[in-house]
């Protein structure tokens, strides 16, 4: 994998921040975009733009072909069939769609939804809302001392009352890879559906939904080189067919009468209204870009850089790292605290040197409480990051220690 060549594709990397070249270490929040993706979107608007699915003229047909072509590329990317790929606004909307579409009519008091304390708010709050509407109960698996999900108790927890299990494939805070295989086995044993919040895993490692064996996964375009405003809900055909659409409107119907309507086949029944067309086309280009590099190579590159980062960071006095130390068990999101320096101050100090890291609760407040951290600074890596970026980070941390008199 030729990182130097890859970097040339990302126009933002030639920007300077406070007079220093940008060192972007916040890809877990959102990734940067290669020129190929940016140009694909512009080109769509400049040459093809029309509404999809409803037109008998050339442009409308080209737009539909571009939109549906993006769907089949995304499907291929995760080894799924096109009709199982639903375009949503993002991971968050996808999870909400499952919560409402699967949960609202099916769940009843006493039913259980199994989550973990390490989930992103997007995989906590929708279930709280559905629990309130249905009387179902939320159960949360804990984390162990290595920041991984503790599954020692699952035999006790999983009984027939468990209807839904939803956990993240990779934590956006600790980087820990989730115990998908074990939980899928446990979920299916009791007849529950298994959902993976794949917002962090799909962008950073190969994903094969057939091999995973789960029922639903959700991910976002903007974290995998694609445009904002679009994400993906993948579901097994029979699950999608059995699920109710949440939103009603144009495109998702077969027929509409004044009092009632029938739904289009999947995936369209879940895509009410004009979809994010240009964004889908852009996501298609992002998927092409990643496929060209090879997701195995993406994963290897990130393992290497994360190992280097964990190693170099351990040199810094007063540092605490929240996450597994074995890179085989984790992705490239590295959360840390440095002495009594607040993460927000750390971010400001690093920003002076052009280094962008996230500071805060990373939309995972329950996990922060669990880890007894109010906020952490997080550096996260992607295909355009280098060991030199890590060096700059380490140097910045040393500087922060000096400024704060540590």
């Amino acid at each position, binding site marked *: 994998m030729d990182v130097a060549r890859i970097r040339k594709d990302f126009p933002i990397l030639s920007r300077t921040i406070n007079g220093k070249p940008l060192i972007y270490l916040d890809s877990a929040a959102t990734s940067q975009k290669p020129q190929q993706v940016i140009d694909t979107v512009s080109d769509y608007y400049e040459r093809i733009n029309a509404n999809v699915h409803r037109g008998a003229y050339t442009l409308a047909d080209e737009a539909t072909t571009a939109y549906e072509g993006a769907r089949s590329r995304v499907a291929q990317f995760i080894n799924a069939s096109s009709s199982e790929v639903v375009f949503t606004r993002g991971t968050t909307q996808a999870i909400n769609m499952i919560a409402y579409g699967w949960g609202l009519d099916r769940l009843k008091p006493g039913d259980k939804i199994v989550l973990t304390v390490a989930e992103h708010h997007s995989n906590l709050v929708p279930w709280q809302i559905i629990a309130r509407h249905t009387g179902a109960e939320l159960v949360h698996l804990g984390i162990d001392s290595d920041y991984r999900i503790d599954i020692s108790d699952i035999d006790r927890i999983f009984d027939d009352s468990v209807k839904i299990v939803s956990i993240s494939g990779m934590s956006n805070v600790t980087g820990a890879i989730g115990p998908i295989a074990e939980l899928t086995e446990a979920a299916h044993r009791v007849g529950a559906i298994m959902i993976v919040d794949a917002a962090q895993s799909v962008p950073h490692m190969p994903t094969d939904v057939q091999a995973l064996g789960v029922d639903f996964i959700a991910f976002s375009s903007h974290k995998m080189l694609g445009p904002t405003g679009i994400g993906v809900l993948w579901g097994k055909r029979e699950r999608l067919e059995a699920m109710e659409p949440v939103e009603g409107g144009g495109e998702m119907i077969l027929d509409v009468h004044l009092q009632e309507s029938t739904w289009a086949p999947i995936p369209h029944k879940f895509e009410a209204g004009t979809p994010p067309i240009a964004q889908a086309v852009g996501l298609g280009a992002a998927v092409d870009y990643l496929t060209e590099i090879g997701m195995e190579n993406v994963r290897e590159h990130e393992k290497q850089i994360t190992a280097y980062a964990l190693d170099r960071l351990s040199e810094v006095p007063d540092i605490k790292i929240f996450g597994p130390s074995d890179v085989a068990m984790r992705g490239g999101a590295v959360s840390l605290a440095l002495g*009594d320096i607040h993460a927000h*101050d750390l971010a*400001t100090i690093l920003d*002076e040197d052009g280094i962008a890291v996230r500071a*805060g609760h990373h939309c995972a407040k329950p996990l922060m409480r669990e880890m007894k951290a109010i*906020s952490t600074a997080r550096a996260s890596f992607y295909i355009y990051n280098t060991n030199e970026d890590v060096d700059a980070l380490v140097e910045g941390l040393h500087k922060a220690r000096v400024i704060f*008199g540590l």
Partner: protein
Amino acid sequence: MSLQELYRGVILDHYRNPRRRGKLTADHIHTEGKNPSCGDEFALDVIIENGVVTDSAIQGQGCSISQASGSMMADAIIGKTLDEVQDLAHTFKVMMTIEEGENPIDPDRPGAVLGDLEALQGVRKFPVRIKCADLPWTTLADALEQATT
């Protein structure tokens, strides 16, 4: 160098040794503020007798700027009339470019106008952080509103 200006010794001192940290027991006004974007939290207890601030205490957690700003504020308002506190808040917000006005600070006489609070001047160069410095002052504004209604 502007980072040094931002993180002056007096700020780090207030961050690490916040004045008036704790809770008041006597009858007091309590207000709270949050910056959801960065997680900063701040809460203020204040006693106002005959139009004068007679006691204050602070709680909360967050970055050095928000916590130092709160510590300094809690100290600065003691003994002031409500009008004086309003003036102080306005002067502070002008210094932080939150409200319109000419920077009241005289660089030749540091501390002459706002005391320790002048150390927060450096925040002006970091627009992202202005809301950190301002957080305690929004809880103060809420407290003043409660006091006058």
